C-alpha cells in the first residue's frame, strides 16, 4: 500500500511506539492525525513532525471515552481527508504495580478493557467502515505476546490484547474481499515508559528502540497486500534486524 498522500490516525501518539510511528508515517508523506490524552506531550510530537516538514494534527482525547469517538473520526477526516490508515496504539496496563488477577479490582479490569478493547472497537467501527466503502485502507492493532502467553500479573492487559486479536480476526473475515485490511502487530519488547511501568528493573539495553519497531510497521503497511487479512504479525525478528542494521 502506498503511504504517501494518505490520511492516517495514530492513537497513543504522544510517546513510545505511537509517537515513533506518527513520525515515521509523516516522513513517508502521510497526513498524520495524532491522538492521545495529554495535549502538551502531543503538541511536542506534532511540533517535531512539523519542524521536519511533515503534516501532523493533534487531537487530545481519551480513546476509552465513548463521547470522543465521533469527534476523533470527524476532526481527523476534516483535516486529513478520508482515513486510510488507523493505528490503534493507545493502551493502558491498568493498576500499577501490576496485580495478580486474583487481586485485580473488577473496576480496574473494566477500565483496561474500555481503553484497550472497547475504545479500539468504537474507533475502528467508524473508520474501517469508510475504508470498506472505498475498498482500501488498513487498520493496525498493536498487540503483545501477553495476549498468548499467560504471564502472571499481566491478566487485565493480556485479556484485552487477546480480545483485540480475536476482534481483528473476526473483522477480517467479515470484510474479506472488500479491499480493506486489518491485522494485529506484535512489535516485541520496546524501551518505552509502558515497559518501564510494567517491568521497572528491565535491562533497557536489551529492549528495542520504538523507532525501529515503527520502521518495521511501515514496511508491513507497504506490503500489506501480501499479508493474510486478520493475521497476528510478530515483528520482533524484523525489529531486531533493523536494530542490527542501524548499529552496523
Amino acid at each position, binding site marked *: 500500500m502506498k503511504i504517501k498522500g494518505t490520511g492516517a490516525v495514530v492513537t497513543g501518539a504522544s510517546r513510545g511506539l505511537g509517537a515513533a510511528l506518527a513520525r515515521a508515517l509523516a516522513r513517508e508523506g502521510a497526513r498524520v*492525525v495524532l491522538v492521545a490524552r495529554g495535549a502538551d506531550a502531543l503538541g511536542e510530537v506534532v511540533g517535531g513532525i512539523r519542524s521536519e516538514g511533515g503534516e501532523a494534527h493533534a487531537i487530545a482525547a481519551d480513546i476509552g471515552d465513548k463521547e470522543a469517538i*465521533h469527534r476523533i473520526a470527524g476532526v481527523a*477526516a*476534516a*483535516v486529513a481527508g478520508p482515513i486510510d490508515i488507523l493505528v490503534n496504539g493507545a493502551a493502558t496496563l491498568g493498576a500499577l504495580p501490576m496485580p495478580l488477577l486474583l487481586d485485580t479490582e473488577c473496576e480496574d479490569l473494566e477500565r483496561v478493557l474500555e481503553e484497550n478493547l472497547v475504545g479500539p472497537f468504537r474507533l475502528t467501527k*467508524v473508520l474501517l*467502515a469508510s475504508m470498506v466503502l472505498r475498498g482500501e485502507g488498513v487498520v493496525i492493532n498493536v498487540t503483545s505476546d501477553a495476549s498468548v502467553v499467560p504471564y502472571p500479573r499481566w491478566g487485565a492487559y493480556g485479556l484485552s490484547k487477546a480480545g483485540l486479536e480475536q476482534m481483528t480476526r473476526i473483522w477480517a473475515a467479515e470484510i474479506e474481499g472488500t479491499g480493506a485490511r486489518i491485522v494485529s502487530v506484535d512489535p516485541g519488547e520496546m524501551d518505552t515508559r509502558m515497559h518501564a511501568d510494567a517491568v521497572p528493573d528491565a535491562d533497557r539495553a536489551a529492549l528495542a528502540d520504538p523507532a525501529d519497531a515503527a520502521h518495521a510497521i511501515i514496511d508491513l503497511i507497504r506490503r500489506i497486500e501480501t499479508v493474510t487479512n486478520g493475521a497476528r504479525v510478530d515483528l520482533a525478528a524484523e525489529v531486531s534486524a533493523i536494530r542490527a542494521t542501524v548499529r552496523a
Partner: protein
Amino acid sequence: MSAALTTDLETTPFPHGAIVTAAHGAHDRAQLRPATWPRPDPHAARLLWIDPGADRFEHALVGGLPGLVAPGDLLVVNDAATIPASLLARTANGAPIEVRLAGVIPEMHGSKDDGASRGSWLGEADFARTHGSGDRGAAPGRAPGADGTSGGQATEKSHFTEENRAWAAVTFGEGDWRVRTEDRPAPPVLRSGERLAFEGGLTARIEQVSDLSPRLVTLRFDLEGAALWDALYRAGRPVQYSYLDGSVALWHVQTRYASVPMAVEPASAGLALTWDLITVLRRRGVQLARITQAAGLSSTGDPAIDAALPLPERFEIPQATVRAIDKAKSEGGRVVAIGTTVVRALEGCAALHGGRLVPGRGTTGLRIGHGHRLLIVDGLLTGIHEPGTSHYEMLRAFAPEALLDRAHAEASKVGYLGHEFGDTCLILGSR
C-alpha cells in the same frame, strides 16, 4: 464476504412480511406522522416501492431492498459525515442565540477573500452574478430545474475542509430544538463585524449579513485546522427538530459509512443501510459507489430562507464512482441514488459538463422537479416526504404526480413515518 454474514435477508426479498399491493386511487389526506426517534432495527422500517413504469406502488420493508434492485444495478451513497452544527452562543451584548451552521462557503472563483463567491450564499444579485444568468437567483420562486450549478474543480485546492473558511449560518433567538423553528424567537439584530462567543471558548466574527434574511449570516471562526474542528465537535450538537422525543447524539445521525464531515444534517436515506444489507446487496451483484455531498439545512422556520433552500452545496465525485457509473450504464444496469443529495450532486455535475460526469469537486444549487430530464440517475431511495417540500418536488422528476399523490396518500393513511428517522420510499422500475 464471509459466509458467516448469511442472513434471512437473502432467503426472501420480504423477510419481515408479505407484499401488500395497495389499492389504487386512495385519496385520503391523512397527515404524515414524523418518526420521533431512531429505529433500533433499520431493516424493519417500511419501504414504499413506487414503480413508475407500471404506474403502481407496493408496500415492502427496507430489509426487502435486495429483492427490488437487480444484479448490475449501482447504488450511489453520500458518505459525508454529519457535523454537530447546532451551537449555542452569546452575542457581544450577552444575548443567548443558537447558530446552525449551513455549510462552508464555496469559494471557487478566485481567492479566499473573493467577495463575490461569499456573496453567492447571501442574496439574489450576488448569487446570479456568481452562478450565471440573472434569472437564476436563489430567490423564492426560483423555478425547479434552474441550473444553479458551479464548477469549483479548477480552483478548489487542498482538502475540502482543512482551510479556515467562512461558514454560512442561520441564527435563532434563545431556546433550542424543542421549540418548532417557526415559533422560535428571532435573534437580536446581528451586524457585520459583531463577535460571537460559543461554549468552550470558541469565538467567531460575523462577516456579512444576508439581504435574503437578517438571520442568514456568514461567519469566520477564530481558530483553524484541527483546533477549530475539535472545538466545533466539543461545543456543537446535531441539528434536530421539535418532533423528536429527545436529544440525539452524533452516533444517531451518522450513516454507517460516514467519512469526511461535510453535512450539517444527515444524508438520512443512508441511515437505512446496515452493513448486513450492503453485504447481501453486493452478493446479489449490486454494486456500491460513493459521492460526498454537503447536505444542508432542511428547514429554518424563516420563510425567506426556507424558500431559497437548498442553498448551493459542495460535492466531490471520485474517479472510481464515475467509472462505476459508466460501467453500470454500459452494461444495462441502473444508477440508484441513496438520497436526494446524491441526485443533486450527480445531476448537478452532469448539468455543468454537458451531460457528462467529471470527477472532482463542485458546487450545485440545482433544483430538480417536474419536467427535469435526469441525465445520470435512474432511481431514488429516499424518505417519505410531504407534498410541497423541495424533496417532494424532486420525486416528480422520477414519477408522475398522480402516482406520487396516490402513493403518498396511502402511506400517510397506513401510518408511514416521515423525516430523517422515518420510513423509506424507493422509486425504481421493476426488472
